[in-house]
């Protein structure tokens, strides 16, 4: 049967290819239109990974405090290499519906750095400081700590105001990451 058909094509008057191709071309164009319309390059989207801490730990992120039910504090000299220091990056934000200087609601009004051994927090930037300058200063300070003797054993916790816009929070988090700190925790929001 196949042989007969082939012979018919070869010996006959020839096949009008245009007649065969046109519907196929129509269908091809429809398929192409479908794929062009559904095409969505999503290569620019990326993610920031993290672990969720139990709620109690998140709320009290920072220097570890002994548990109430523990009769004796854990020995400090058992494995000092594993002991970790936590520094706090505190970000205050302009409250909802308010404005501070050139900064509108939800923008960082003050960035502070609190080291565990110090009682007072160090102000990195305030209302008059442009955000990019403040973040640059923060990165410089964090890099100094990272290169210091306890740099490898230091974690960061970000204490942000409840009103801080998430985009700015990510910028602060990104700055901490840029200073090569591997563990960055999020503390419960400050304020209502």
């Amino acid at each position, binding site marked *: 049967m196949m042989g007969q058909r082939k012979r018919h094509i070869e010996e006959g008057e020839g096949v009008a290819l245009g007649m065969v191709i046109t519907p196929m071309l129509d269908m091809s164009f429809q398929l192409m239109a479908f794929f*062009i319309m559904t095409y969505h390059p999503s290569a*620019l989207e*990326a*993610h920031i990974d993290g672990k*969720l801490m139990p709620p109690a730990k998140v709320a009290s992120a920072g220097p570890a405090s002994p548990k109430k039910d523990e009769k004796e504090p854990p020995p400090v000299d058992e494995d000092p290499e594993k002991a970790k220091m936590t520094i706090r990056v505190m970000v205050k934000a302009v409250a909802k519906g308010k404005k501070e200087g050139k900064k509108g609601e939800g923008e960082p009004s003050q960035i502070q750095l609190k080291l565990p051994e110090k009682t007072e927090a160090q102000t990195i930037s305030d209302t008059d400081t442009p955000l990019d300058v403040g973040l640059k200063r923060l990165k410089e300070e964090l890099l100094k700590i990272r290169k210091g003797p306890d740099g490898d054993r230091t974690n960061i916790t970000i204490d942000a105001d409840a009103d*801080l816009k998430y985009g700015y*929070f*990510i910028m602060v988090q990104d700055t901490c*990451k840029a200073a090569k700190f591997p563990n960055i925790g999020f503390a419960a929001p400050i304020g209502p």
Partner: protein
Amino acid sequence: MHGGGDSNAEPNLIPLLDLVFQLIMFFMITVNFVRVDQLNEEVALPVAQAAVPMDQAADNWVFLNMSKAGKLLVSTGDDLSTPGKVRLYVEREKLALVREARERGETKDIKVVIVLRAHKDARYKDVWEALDSCTKAGYQRWQLRVLYQPPSS
């Protein structure tokens, strides 16, 4: 066509068809069907330089989109206006994903990751509360979706 004076000339459609097929092949290979909750156009993501490319291998994900007003949006249309409702929703989704994975024959420890796509203007409090609800629902890992911006220098 070959004679030059033949008026019965027809365009040769075969190269065109070849090209169209190649284009179709390209689009078929690069096509990326995403669920509505994985691509919510209402959500303008924040920008970060330290973000890592998406992991296409993992499939046990629960997607949460957060609008500018801090409202959580999911493809099922569930009302997630309170932390309790969020917790119930993510618990239910997690159970469903674990069940599906077991039915597929996965025997190892099944890890479900929460993916939060929050609008850059949402309040930190709303983001934190959403993650807190996930913690209470037993999730151990999260991903915050951002737009990757390569470092300028």
